[in-house]
């Protein structure tokens, strides 16, 4: 049956900010779906609060709402747009839960909106643990013995039956949020209480643990004619007990016999049918007992997921796109296989390579938190690698992870047996290398299998890799043979590792290897294992290679280097830029070649570029592509720090780097050269110095004066960046936190307390500079720009100061010879402007600026890099938009209990949202809501402010009182408020005895916190307050300007204001002429 003609417009719900468990895979899915539906002539209304997404590009949907994804705001959008249908299966758990809420509160019925993709009853049946288990019983499939509990008493009762260890799963949450494995009663009570609290329906499932069972996933699609296909099977290398998002996973399943595989396939279809998923993609998870083959259904997600994005990238079968088509009535046989362009989509991909996905963690950003992996997802990103064999694929994934590993090699640590056993038995990020050590110590496969629960099939290969790694050290550069090199390369060893083993340089080794004819080749991902000719150029490298399958692209071509796995500080924002670069190049008639290793992204959709190389971003892998394609240029400034770090080695090898010369990067990063430039331009930097050891650091700090801001050079996301108040602390930092060297000194800056920070993005063609936006931070200085709330246009800076900021930016861009994008961070103290940092590359704020202004600057920058001038392009500066756009961060603290949640110079947010409105207060309120910290309209407000703010706090407090809030304050603030006749309770600071502020927050006695911090002593208290407020999910405002804005926002909320308005409407009324380019 062809598409439905009774639908005209469809509302698509996105997934909001990037958080752990919900990342850019939903931008990939949503973007695909919107494109697919638009192709069929539907009018698409989109809501997504995340400005860094491709899906919120104004050219994509017909009406794009960057508004909070809450039932209240989505209702307003429905009332305004009156869509015929709502598609909730592409925006993760957020979209599913929001759609359910709108169903429950009658909004969908009131406005006659049909839920397509999955009906409400289907979602309930899949997500409600009890209903799901009953459904499985009905079709004769086993689920783990379990009990439902809604109170701690019920939970304690249930656990008596289940025994320990047991798994606690909160209902309707994503990424296993709030869940965990309990091994004892104490752990059980903690996790159960947390789970009940975090489940939106206050319900948890207590389940018998299947620790050690093998874990599998099936990606299933079904159309309304009941045609079902398995797109991909996935086997988790880590056994049950580790969340699949945190597991190393391999596709296809490796250790199932055909009988077992078909049984799982049949079960997957039976589940789809019983749950009632009529159309679309679902993910079903199974556990298999390795000793007898018993099969247990763990769960199913009636929507596209992280795994479906992985399956799409692993097979070339675009699940989200097809899910959208099926939702509007198509059947699988009516859709064409995009890759073969001949055969229908109604088939099951067969692959002839092995795919390995590895998670990337960020525990170093959350000291004190436990890095043991469990049922709650903790990874912040992932990398995928394709190789012809498991070994090749596994090693490519390891180096694609960008954690400093060149492959499966290690230090050959000599652990005692019990220590090694502990390291093997405990699932944690570094476990793989304990396995390496075990094999080096001659443990056998079965011993390691027993301790880790990992299937012997995988371990047999890891053993061979470890043995090969050890054996390589026995050889030397002079007598290594071509056969040896070929074997090592086929087992995935990197040039870096082989060179290290042979005692030569990487370049030397590459040359010898190539001279010996051991070369890499490229193979196609074609969905059909070579059975049909493939039309889509999606390639991966392999040393298992006889002849080239595809010739290099013809004509003018440019390689774009992506950002690799998401991590804190480098994520979707950079992928957004890479996608825009590709689209801009294609528009100019230049072939675009994307290189990236992140399966979650839009950039690794084979539709985006003329050619996609799914490869790790290392010098070796990128150089091999450049040597083959011989591109006219390589773009390194869009993918964050990853490609920038490769720039000089690529340039040295003669690869043409496009845009800003590599030399300018060094000039901006090198302290001495940077200071010279500022002096030359008459600009100021905070007093600063450099140090390669503790003595130098102390000397510099005394010269500059405390407090100081310290950080290593060449890092992104403020890694290991700290504010230090005294010499003792500085000594600790130099000893414990960083390894300083002559090449990588520690940078020491005077920390400007109480200053306003400003971010500026600009684009420069070498002759002219256009300032894209000036962003004013709402939080006090000292908080990483990625973690700050900021606003376009500035709200408290004078016109002349803004002018001065723009002029300084222009001067620096021209001086550095920037061709493309540049980001500047400045601080304003009084009327003095300090330049903190200059990054001659795309910054994290580029997409936010684009959404706030309506101008796709990443595309303009690409055009500029390709040789066009800003004049030719007709790009003008936007003086001031007619609306306010506030960017706010989303934090993962709730996932890292035990970690301090105070904000500082080290970035810890995973994502961001934008609130946009005609006035600042409402934009703030929207941003706050969208980030999951909705401003309260009633309750008690806790105030504790520094002396400088004591005057202005009175006004804020008075407004809050008149809005019906009660007040509680610490001593100083309390006295001020009393003196001004405001009714207020007093509460102890932490060091003043109990009950104190933290008790107040933990007990959720307050609904809003206003806390403006200063200095080291209060910084400790302030840190506690901030940490606890995140754990308790209470909005916490840290500057008076934010507090004042919030109060206005609350006022607006109480009046029922907060109209929704699409980006297209904002841009139409702005003095902006958006550069429109179709995706």
């Amino acid at each position, binding site marked *: 049956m062809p598409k439905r003609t009774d639908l005209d417009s469809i509302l698509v719900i996105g997934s909001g900010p990037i958080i752990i468990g919900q990342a850019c895979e939903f931008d990939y899915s949503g973007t695909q779906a919107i494109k697919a539906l638009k192709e069929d002539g539907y009018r698409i209304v989109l809501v997504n609060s995340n400005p860094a997404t491709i899906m919120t590009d104004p050219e994509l949907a017909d009406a794009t709402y960057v508004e909070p994804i809450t039932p209240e705001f989505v209702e307003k959008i429905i009332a305004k747009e009156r869509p015929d249908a709502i598609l909730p299966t592409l925006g993760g758990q957020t979209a599913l839960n929001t759609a359910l809420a709108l169903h429950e509160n009658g909004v969908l019925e009131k406005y006659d909106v049909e839920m397509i993709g999955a009906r409400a009853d289907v979602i309930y049946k899949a997500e409600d643990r009890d209903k799901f288990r009953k459904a499985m019983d009905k079709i004769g499939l086993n689920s783990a013995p379990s009990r439902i509990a809604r109170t701690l008493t019920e939970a304690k009762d249930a656990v008596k039956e289940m025994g320990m260890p047991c798994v606690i799963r909160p209902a309707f949450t994503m990424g296993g949020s709030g869940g965990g494995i309990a091994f004892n009663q104490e752990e059980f009570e903690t996790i159960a209480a947390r789970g009940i609290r975090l489940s939106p329906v206050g319900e948890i499932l207590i389940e018998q643990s299947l620790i050690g069972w093998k874990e599998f996933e099936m990606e299933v699609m079904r159309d309304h004619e009941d045609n079902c296909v398995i797109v991909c099977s996935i086997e988790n290398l880590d056994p049950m007990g580790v969340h699949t998002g945190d597991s190393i996973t391999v596709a296809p399943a490796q250790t199932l016999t055909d009988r077992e595989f078909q049984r799982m396939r049949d079960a997957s279809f039976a589940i789809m049918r019983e749950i009632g998923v009529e159309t679309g993609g679902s993910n079903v998870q199974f556990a298999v007992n390795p000793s007898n083959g018993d099969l247990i259904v763990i769960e199913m997600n009636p929507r596209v997921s992280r795994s479906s994005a992985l399956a799409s990238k692993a097979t070339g079968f675009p699940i989200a796109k097809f899910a959208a088509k099926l939702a509007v009535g198509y059947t699988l046989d009516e859709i064409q296989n995009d890759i073969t362009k001949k055969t229908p989509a109604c088939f099951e991909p067969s692959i002839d390579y092995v795919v390995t996905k590895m998670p990337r963690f960020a525990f170093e950003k959350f000291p004190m938190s436990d890095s043991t992996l469990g049922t709650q997802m903790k990874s912040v990103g992932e990398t995928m690698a394709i190789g012809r064999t498991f070994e090749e694929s596994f090693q490519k994934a390891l180096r694609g992870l960008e954690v400093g590993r060149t492959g499966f090699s290690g230090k050959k640590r000599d652990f005692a047996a019990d220590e090694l056993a502990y390291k093997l038995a405990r699932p944690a990020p570094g476990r793989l290398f304990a396995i390496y050590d075990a094999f080096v110590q001659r443990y056998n496969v079965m011993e390691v299998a027993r301790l880790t629960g990992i299937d012997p099939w995988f371990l047999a290969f890891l053993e061979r890799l470890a043995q090969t790694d050890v054996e390589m050290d026995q050889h030397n550069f002079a007598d290594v043979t071509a056969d040896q090199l070929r074997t090592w390369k086929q087992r995935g060893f990197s040039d870096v590792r082989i060179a290290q083993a042979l005692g030569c340089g990487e370049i030397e080794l590459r040359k010898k290897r190539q001279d010996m004819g051991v070369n890499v080749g490229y193979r196609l991902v074609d969905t059909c294992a*070579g059975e049909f000719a493939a039309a889509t150029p999606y390639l991966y490298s392999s040393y298992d290679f006889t002849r080239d399958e595809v010739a290099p692209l013809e004509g003018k071509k440019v390689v774009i280097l992506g950002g690799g796995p998401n991590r804190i500080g480098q994520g979707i924002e950079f992928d957004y830029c890479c996608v825009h670069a590709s689209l801009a190049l294609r528009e100019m008639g230049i072939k675009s070649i994307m290189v990236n290793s992140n399966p979650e992204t839009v950039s690794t959709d084979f539709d985006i570029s003329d050619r996609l190389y799914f490869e790790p971003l290392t010098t070796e892998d990128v150089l091999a592509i450049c040597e083959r394609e011989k591109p006219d240029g390589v773009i390194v400034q869009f993918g964050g720090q990853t490609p920038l770090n490769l720039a000089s080695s690529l340039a040295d090898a003669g690869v043409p780097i496009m845009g800003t010369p590599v030399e300018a990067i060094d000039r901006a990063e090198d302290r001495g050269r940077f200071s010279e430039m500022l002096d030359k331009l008459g600009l100021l930097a905070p007093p600063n110095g450099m140090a390669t050891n503790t003595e130098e650091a102390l000397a510099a700090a005394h010269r500059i004066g405390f407090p100081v801001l310290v950080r290593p050079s060449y890092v992104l996301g403020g890694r290991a960046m700290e504010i230090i108040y005294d010499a003792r602390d500085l000594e600790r930092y130099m000893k414990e936190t960083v390894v300083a060297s002559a090449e990588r000194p520690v940078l020491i800056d005077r920390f400007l307390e109480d200053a306003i920070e400003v971010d500026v993005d600009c684009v420069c063609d070498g002759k002219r500079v256009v300032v894209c936006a000036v962003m004013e931070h709402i939080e006090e200085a000292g908080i990483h720009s990625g973690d700050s709330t900021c606003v376009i246009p500035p709200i408290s800076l004078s016109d002349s100061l803004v002018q001065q900021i723009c002029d300084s930016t222009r001067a620096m861009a021209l001086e550095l010879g920037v061709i493309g994008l540049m980001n500047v961070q400045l601080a304003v103290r009084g009327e003095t402007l300090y330049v903190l940092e200059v990054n001659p590359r795309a910054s994290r704020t580029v997409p936010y600026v684009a959404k706030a202004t309506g101008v796709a600057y990443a595309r303009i920058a690409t055009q500029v890099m390709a040789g066009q001038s800003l004049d030719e392009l007709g790009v003008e500066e936007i003086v001031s938009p007619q609306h306010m756009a506030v960017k706010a961060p989303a934090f993962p603290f709730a996932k890292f209990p035990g970690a301090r949640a105070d904000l500082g110079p080290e970035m810890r947010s995973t994502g961001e949202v934008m609130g946009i409105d005609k006035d600042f207060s409402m934009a703030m309120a929207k941003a706050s809501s969208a980030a999951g910290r909705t401003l309260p309209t009633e309750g008690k407000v806790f105030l504790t402010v520094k002396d400088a703010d004591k005057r202005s706090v009175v006004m804020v407090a008075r407004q809050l009182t008149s809005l019906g809030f009660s007040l509680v304050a610490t001593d100083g603030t309390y006295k001020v408020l009393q003196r001004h006749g405001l009714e207020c309770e007093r509460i102890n600071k932490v060091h003043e005895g109990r009950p104190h502020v933290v008790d107040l927050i933990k007990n959720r006695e307050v609904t809003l916190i206003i806390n403006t911090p200063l200095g080291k002593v209060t910084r400790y208290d302030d840190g506690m307050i901030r940490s606890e407020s995140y754990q308790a999910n209470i909005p916490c405002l840290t500057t008076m300007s934010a507090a004042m804005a919030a109060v206005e926002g609350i006022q607006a909320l109480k009046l029922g204001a907060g109209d929704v308005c699409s980006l297209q409407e904002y841009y139409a009324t702005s003095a902006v002429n958006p550069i429109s380019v179709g995706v």
Partner: protein
Amino acid sequence: MGNEHSPAILVLEDGTAYYGQSVGASGERAFELVFNTSMTGYQEILTDPSYAGQGVVMTYPQIGNYGVCLEDDESDRCWADAMIMREMSPLASNYRAEMTLGAYLQQRDVLGIEGIDTRDLTLKLRDQGALRAVLSTEFFDVAALTEMAKGHPSLEGRDLAANVTCKSSYQWDESLPGFGKPGADSPHLVCFDFGVKRNILRCLVACGFRVTVVPASTSAADVLALQPDALFLSNGPGDPAAVTYAHESVRTLVEGGLATFGICLGHQILAHAFGAKTYKMKFGHHGANHPVVESNVGKIDITTQNHSFAVDIDSLKKSGLVTTHVNGNDGTLAGMEHSSLPVFSVQYHPEAAPGPHDSQHLFQRFFHLVQANKKPVA
């Protein structure tokens, strides 16, 4: 994990040589090369009599991962001449595994080679069509081996069913797991064994037949003497056009009104029995992911396919046979029925093993057809 295998060589009729390691039996054998895109089920493939005379290139690069479990055999021996792999697992990881694939290949006298760029080989077969080849573990003269490959007879015109069929008739009563066995009053089915897979017989028993398997050359009169209620024409190897004796006996039986179901070679023989034609395909269909569309229903089954010959759709005219199923990938004939007689057949494998179970309902459909066709007791 060792690497101490002896060398082996695979030489194609066009002179291309691939060097690898021997991981199965030793010797030298010529065969026709086909590629199979199933990611699981190597053991079922090796023991499927339809692979007689063929060397199988597995497109999935990691083969042998779960070892071998004898109850998964599809016949009492291996029929494929060789298995060509990128990498064979030296370890069998499955609770049911009884031995490694390598040990099995040696025990069952099948040549095995690993370390081959199987994707390259597959693309070659796709572009050039099925090729004859020689695999040797003893003799490495490429020119001589090329000549040997060239001298190997093509599948075309060869009756291989005669080589694989049973010597004498027998009863089969093993059913699918979880299904009962037929009683004495169950309808009696006679199965022509052109190279039948065990799972076909299990499926027939599971849906309610008493099954007697007879040799391919059994005459119509001898079949009728068994008083069958139903006739089944099995899968098998070789050129369907060459099995002329079966065309004859099948024609007599179906025209006599006996309800008949054919699979694969059986389907092709049925076409010949009614005067339709078959032809050799470029590289055939060998995999477990082929979509089959049932005409006028719109329902799609994902199927296992394994055939190098196909029934010419155009030749069905005047035969009384009509198309019921087509292959979704290339539009070739996948199923047909007779316009007036109780006869239908499919080119693919509803018995799976290996592969998806989507079309197992066809056995049930046949059982109902037989019951409807059974003459009421006078």
